[in-house]
């Protein structure tokens, strides 16, 4: 497959692995956080850890859009479908995130709520056009990658003069989350989470560019290498981080030059700026309230804001006590440190959000890597 297989070449991977092993100094460790769930997925799916030396540790970050969605927000979406009888449209994995009272969007659907899975934001708009007598709400989630499509459908809805279409906006911002992790007492003071560098987001960076990360590199003295989601991208980024750390550099480097520029996508950025504005604060699962970390719909487009239309009141709901998703999303714990991992909490019956999406740290480890926790005999 053109443009795909080149980035999954096993021989090349082994050559990069040899370089990493040669250059990683045995006397120190390299603790690297991959921010994005896309990277987490690639690392697990392609068995990248098997190719790395023991002193290069990968720490999963909070960059899985479904994982960071707090229970209260899912509860709100279910209320829209039940109390307000709206058609609620959303992206696939969101359907399975556990909400209050043992519900999820999928379980609410089975109980009669009209909840529909869409592949694209424009599908939600079409559903609104096809159902003029019904309220249709697009439950918008995701980082900077999925924000421009939401901006576009809000503008299209306005151009079409739709009166039955609104967006329940839950878009969140990557840089704010990285700052929050770097500012957390676990990283800053206690040193519980050794964090030497970041593999920077792939798709998010195609939109926002590499420039926003320069601040972290400079202010917190942590190198950032922006990398694509293919396994060779990840391998190459690890090598680049090892080199930066060896040379005492803390710079933003771009491995994903085929898609990311320093400035990003100006058109997408201006669309987002036209439709959305910063929220003062937003609750993230695992990170708690994070200041200026999410977007809401501007007053100009108030007619398409589900929060205004339905007067949605947000109630914060605590996670299940046994669930360690919070600590896992902050990099403080590993999936296997959680008591319910693989026992009560499985992809079929997720307790926490990290077990839901294939990009979640727990689901990725359970699905692809859990045999490593158990001894397996060869034939």
């Amino acid at each position, binding site marked *: *497959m053109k443009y*795909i297989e080149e980035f*999954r070449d*096993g021989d090349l*991977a*082994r050559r990069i*692995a040899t370089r990493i092993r040669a250059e990683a100094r045995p006397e120190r460790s390299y603790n690297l956080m991959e921010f994005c769930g896309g990277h987490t997925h690639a690392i*697990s*799916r*392609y*068995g*990248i*850890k*098997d*190719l790395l030396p023991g002193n290069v540790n990968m720490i999963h970050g909070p960059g899985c859009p479904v994982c960071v969605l707090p229970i209260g927000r899912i509860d709100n979406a279910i209320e829209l479908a039940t109390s307000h009888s709206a058609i609620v449209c959303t992206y696939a994995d969101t359907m*399975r995130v556990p909400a209050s009272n043992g519900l999820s969007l999928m379980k609410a659907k089975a109980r009669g709520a009209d909840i529909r899975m*869409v*592949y*694209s934001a424009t*599908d939600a708009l079409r559903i609104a056009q096809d159902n003029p007598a019904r309220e249709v709400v697009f439950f918008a989630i995701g980082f900077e990658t999925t924000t421009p499509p939401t901006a576009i459908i809000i503008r299209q809805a306005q151009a079409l003069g739709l009166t039955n279409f609104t967006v329940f906006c839950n878009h969140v911002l990557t840089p704010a989350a990285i700052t929050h992790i770097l500012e957390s007492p676990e990283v800053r003071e206690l040193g519980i989470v050794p964090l030497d560098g970041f593999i920077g987001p792939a798709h998010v960076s195609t939109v926002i560019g590499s420039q926003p990360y320069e601040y972290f590199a400079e202010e917190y003295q942590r190198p950032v290498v922006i990398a694509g989601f293919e*396994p060779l991208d990840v391998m190459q980024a690890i090598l680049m981080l090892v080199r930066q750390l060896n040379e005492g550099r803390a710079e933003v480097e771009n491995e994903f030059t085929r898609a990311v520029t320093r400035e990003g996508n100006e058109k997408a950025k201006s669309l987002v700026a036209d439709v959305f504005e910063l929220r003062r604060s937003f609750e993230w699962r695992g990170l708690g309230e994070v200041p200026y970390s999410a977007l809401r719909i501007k007053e100009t487009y108030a007619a398409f804001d589900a929060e205004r239309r339905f007067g949605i009141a947000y109630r914060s709901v605590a996670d299940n006590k046994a669930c360690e998703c919070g600590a896992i999303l902050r990099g403080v714990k590993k999936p296997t440190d959680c008591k319910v991992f693989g026992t009560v909490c499985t*992809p*079929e019956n997720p307790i926490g959000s990290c077990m839901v999406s294939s990009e979640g740290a727990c*689901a990725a480890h*359970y*699905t*692809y*890597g*859990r*045999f490593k926790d*158990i001894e*397996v*005999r*060869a*034939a």
Partner: protein
Amino acid sequence: MTKGRSDYVRPVDFKHGRVDMTHGGGGRAMAQLIEELFARAFSNEWLAQGNDNALFTVPAGRMVMATDSHVVSPLEFPGGDIGCLAVHGTINDVAMAGARPLYLAAGFILEEGFPLATLKRIVESMAAASREAGVPVITGDTKVVEQGKGDGLFITTTGIGVVPPGVEISGDRARAGDCILVSGTIGDHGVAIMSLRENLTFETTIRSDTAALHGLVAAMVDAVPTIRCLRDPTRGGLGTTLNEFARQSGVGMLIHESKIPVRAEVNAACEFLGLDPLYVANEGKLIAICPPEDADRLLGAMRTHPLGAGAAIIGEVVADAHGFVQMETSFGGRRVVDWLTGEQLPRIC
């Protein structure tokens, strides 16, 4: 006095007509639909008797029986339709015991309002598939449900077959050291269906691989009577079938990504849909497990049959009390090929 044409019955309007409740009501309309469509298409001595059952002589030995309900959407897709799929699916389930399929029974659930032209097309495709396979549909049933209570057409088929003496094929017989074979490229059917899904249409040249595999199975059993396990990886794909074998046999599996045949187009479609070809449905492929010393002979027998031309040895059975299916990735790492969580595609067979 004018002579009334009392023997004239207006034929069923297969051009513009639609299924209505009378077609399942047990009256004249139903009898007429059965006669003009089903009996004519499937035409055989058992249906000609007009009974609610079919009488046949039981051969000596062991018999197998399998049933399969088909609810695929869309009903017609590149490379086939629900009709031929219903024939192939059940023949394959019977054949996977190493058996020679003998007869089929078919139940149709029609939704009120369903176009008779489409029904005719599908039934004729089903009859052609049954004739080609040499496995007649010898009894059947038709029901009509009100509009909104079905999805056009559901077909359930049941088949019986006879297992040759000495053949012992079952999902619980895999042993550490055995070889795992696949009869050809995986994921073709699922991707062909996906390409037509609402909201998802994309252009592709991929066709469903739907086919009756009993001829291939007969050739395989003939060449290697010691085959331990056979199964067609339909819903859930290769990954699911291997997990089923692992659980039934209490063993693990190790497969090699680079040896699994996947069409470039299927890989590409899976890539942008976010699917894993290991879990995409097939309707004309089988997985076989046999002792290592017989693997090359089995591979040779498969490759000489047109439906097994793309066969490959993809891995081996390993001792593992946890029953993990593992895969050596083409990238060089190793990972679990787990049970599918939820469903990758809704309703594909």
